[in-house]
């Protein structure tokens, strides 16, 4: 087996830095994180800035020897707080997060016919509207849950108890079920 060149070796060693760790997290989390921010009601440009800022803070957090036991929850919490600060600062007047969010692309559909596809889209729109009727906490919990966060992680992000997270998810689902 050929040994790596010296230059490669140095590059590899440099890449085992916090910077590499952050980029690994970026590759894994940036899309779900941006989706979450979109559902908080932010526009694309704000999402982009907050994601950049969140990962830069993650880098600083790691460099400073911060706790690394759950960096995903840490990242979402930072992004969540930045988003809240941003919304408070600019008094966002957008009508709703989901209207913008769902306009960004067609929903995935297994519909075999045009009619099925139409029904699937119609259902998506209704569900989107129904989600706007939920309380902020219920919506946030459901969106974080859909990104694969565990209840204790969601609790960490939103500064709630785990039982409150469970309650928000349950109530949110019950409301959506009624509407649909």
């Amino acid at each position: 087996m050929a040994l790596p060149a010296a230059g490669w070796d140095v590059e590899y060693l440099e890449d085992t830095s916090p910077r590499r760790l952050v980029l690994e997290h970026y590759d894994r989390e940036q899309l779900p994180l941006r989706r979450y921010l979109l559902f908080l009601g932010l526009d694309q440009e704000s999402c982009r800035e907050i994601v950049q800022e969140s990962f830069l803070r993650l880098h600083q957090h790691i460099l400073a020897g911060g706790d690394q036991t759950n960096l995903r929850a840490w990242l979402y919490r930072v992004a969540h707080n930045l988003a809240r600060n941003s919304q408070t600062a600019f008094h966002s007047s957008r009508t709703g997060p989901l209207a913008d969010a769902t306009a960004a692309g067609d929903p995935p559909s297994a519909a075999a016919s045009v009619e099925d596809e139409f029904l699937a889209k119609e259902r998506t729109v209704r569900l989107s509207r129904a989600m706007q009727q939920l309380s902020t906490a219920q919506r946030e919990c459901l969106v974080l849950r859909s990104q694969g966060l565990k209840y204790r992680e969601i609790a960490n992000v939103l500064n709630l108890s785990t039982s409150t997270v469970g309650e928000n998810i349950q109530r949110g689902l019950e409301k959506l079920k009624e509407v649909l």
Partner: protein
Amino acid sequence: MNTPDHLTNDLLVRALDDELSDSENALVESHLPGCEHCGQNYAALRLLSGRIESVIAAATPEALEGDRDLLAERMETVCIQPAAVKNYRRAVRWIVPIAAALLLALFIPRLAHLSKQNQIAASQYRPGATLEVDGETFIPLPYSNPDLPMSAPHIVEMQVPVASLASAGLVFEPVSNGPAVSERSVLADVLVGLDGQPLGVHVLSVE
């Protein structure tokens, strides 16, 4: 709806999310296969959860090709910054007021003790003796410990009361000014030694 004969929505939702305790899990696993009502409820909640995921997944933000490179570049900038004192000061800007408060708690009592002795004008105090750290010149303070190494200097930018400096022999205005002197402060870089004590001072501005 949630009669004792059936599982609650809370249990069913947490079962979906794999958030049950062992005993709850045992209850759900034993009940669900034999109860049509709970089975349908569970299936409905699972379907709804899947649809929510689809709606959220559909909200794919536009692709941002250059953002990863931009992040890498910005992190690189942080990494390659020399550990210069001025950068350090910028990084710790927010903790400076806290550090200053702590430092003054140590600083003032010692100076107050010295103030009872003769006050010496700055120009008269150890003439020609200065400390050079990272290109910055500091006037040594009377209680500097010359035995401690200077290899790891720590510089804190802070507001230093003129009265404290006067006690250390750095006089900025006639002592006869009285009360006004004690109320004023100057912006200064304070060189802190390894023992946490101020070694020297470099006055940055006098208002």
